């Protein structure tokens, strides 16, 4: 299926549960062949958005379109082309992995063409009843269910939840391979490090509102550098905080640690007025940018 518009188009989408507004008018676009991260703390509205895209719940207002099809009106046609991995993969305990895969492949109305590859790649147990599976094993079955019929668009709700680090790496490699095959992937997470390895862009949602939609690279630039400085002369924390581009100042063992955004030149010139015993700079983890969004949420809530 080819579409002129972006693969996923969400316009002014609202969802309320009684008086509680879970999602407050979000708008975003996901382009063909993109791996798009949808980040936010628990309860921010990620799963609500995803479940509306699948018509399991209905929007209060606004539109959600995938592959040019309306998520509510054209859901039958749309669902032929998407694969879905829920946030919490729960499956009937009495069925085996093989039975559950056969059941959902029948419901999809398609042969699971990628089944053998997926089973081998993720080392999926197929013969035992699902009630004996650990969370990670169920998650692997969920991954197989989402990808097995080779859909064009993947909607993944916290896909690495429950996977061990080795499997997470395998899964990330797999996502990149799928992207190379032209798949569009929309994945939610509350862990920045999960998405920064594979996503080109991320949207951050907080309390039902989009805070930012950025390329991961630009977020990295925003995060700037994490700098450690040890001075030979007495320098107060206030003075460090006033230096150009400096934020998030902490001190430990006579050294100051802080973030610097943008050009380092002005900072180095400011530091040159003092005796510098040690200077160390490294890329700030994106997790900190994301945590900043989280903290703003708490502050907003407390106001």
């Amino acid at each position: 299926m080819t579409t002129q518009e972006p693969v996923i188009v969400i316009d002014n989408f609202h969802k309320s549960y009684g008086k509680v507004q879970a999602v407050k008018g979000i708008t975003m676009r996901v382009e063909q062949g993109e791996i798009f991260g949808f980040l936010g703390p628990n309860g921010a509205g990620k799963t609500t958005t995803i479940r509306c895209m699948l018509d399991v719940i209905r929007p209060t207002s606004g539109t959600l379109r995938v592959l040019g099809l309306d998520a509510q009106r054209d859901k039958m046609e749309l669902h032929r082309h998407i694969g879905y991995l829920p946030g919490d993969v729960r499956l009937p305990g009495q069925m085996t992995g093989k039975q559950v895969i056969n059941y959902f492949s029948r419901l999809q109305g398609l042969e699971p063409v990628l089944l053998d590859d997926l089973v081998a790649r993720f080392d999926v147990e197929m013969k035992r009843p699902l009630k004996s599976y650990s969370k990670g094993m169920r998650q692997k079955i969920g991954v197989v269910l989402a990808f097995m019929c080779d859909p064009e668009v993947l909607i993944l709700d916290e896909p690495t939840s429950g996977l061990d680090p080795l499997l997470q790496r395998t899964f990330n490699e797999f996502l990149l391979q799928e992207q190379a095959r032209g798949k569009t992937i929309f994945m939610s997470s509350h862990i920045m490090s999960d998405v920064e390895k594979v996503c080109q862009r991320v949207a951050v949602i907080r309390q039902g509102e989009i805070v930012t939609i950025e390329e991961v690279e630009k977020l990295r630039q925003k995060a700037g550098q994490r700098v450690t400085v040890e001075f030979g002369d007495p320098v107060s924390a206030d003075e460090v905080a006033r230096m150009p581009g400096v934020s998030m100042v902490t001190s430990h063992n006579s050294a100051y640690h802080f973030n610097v955004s943008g050009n380092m030149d002005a900072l180095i010139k400011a530091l040159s007025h003092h005796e510098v015993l040690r200077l160390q700079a490294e890329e700030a983890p994106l997790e900190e940018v994301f945590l900043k969004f989280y903290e703003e949420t708490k502050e907003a809530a407390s106001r």
Partner: protein
Amino acid sequence: MASTSIPTTVAAPKKRARGLTITMRALSNSKIILSYGAFYALFIAVVIGFLYPSISSINMNAYLTSNAVAGLLGAKLTNANSYSALAALELYSSFYVLIWGGIIAYIAGSTLPASIENGTLDLALARPISRTRYYLEVWLGATIGAVILSVTTFLAVWVSTLFVKNAGIDWTWLIIAQTLELAAMFLAGGIGVLFGSFINASRAAGGAAIGILALFYLMNTLGGISDNLSWMLKIEPIYYIQGIQALAVHSITGWYPLVPVIGGLVCGIAGLVIFNRRDLPTT
């Protein structure tokens, strides 16, 4: 862990027939409770077959014609000395409407919420399956369950006649009685899917559906016991399901069977509307 690489070009997946996948799964999940019902029918039929020679010599007329017992059975029998009447008493009274209806109501009521509880509903509806189809397949599963119980009960009566001398069953009236019981189970299935359409916990939905049937049974009993409460009979559907009357005394009121069928359809369609309109929960 094997490291594999999916070829850049993968053959388009072939189409696969869906069939009645959801119905078959609903029936498979209900096989234990259906087996209990089928075993119970067979057991009762065989027991009354064995007991018939002794029971037939007892004059139970005074017992059967009392208001209290008639209220419990859903009909006032004047003679239970024939094997037909005994089979009707033990397999087609309103009490058995409650038992087999309860089984079907539980299956119909619990299947949809169970698919919410075990996470399969989200995954199923993310595929090209409409809610209407999902719901109707669940309802069909309960109806097939009702047919299975009906056929089993019919066969159970036939088995019992193999060792009852001069059983004298009128097969046409047995079919009519069984059809009335099937109509009762259809009603129960409709009530079940209605409750399953808006209650998210399987046991609660199945239990609530049984509760409604039990309420109808209670109204039927109380209405039969007291003339002052006879108005209750007309407003609950079990009064119109007189399988016991059909098999024991070969009589039926023409339009009565329509009541449970229409009741079942109304409940089932109401549930379909609710299920199609609501937001489905994650748990």
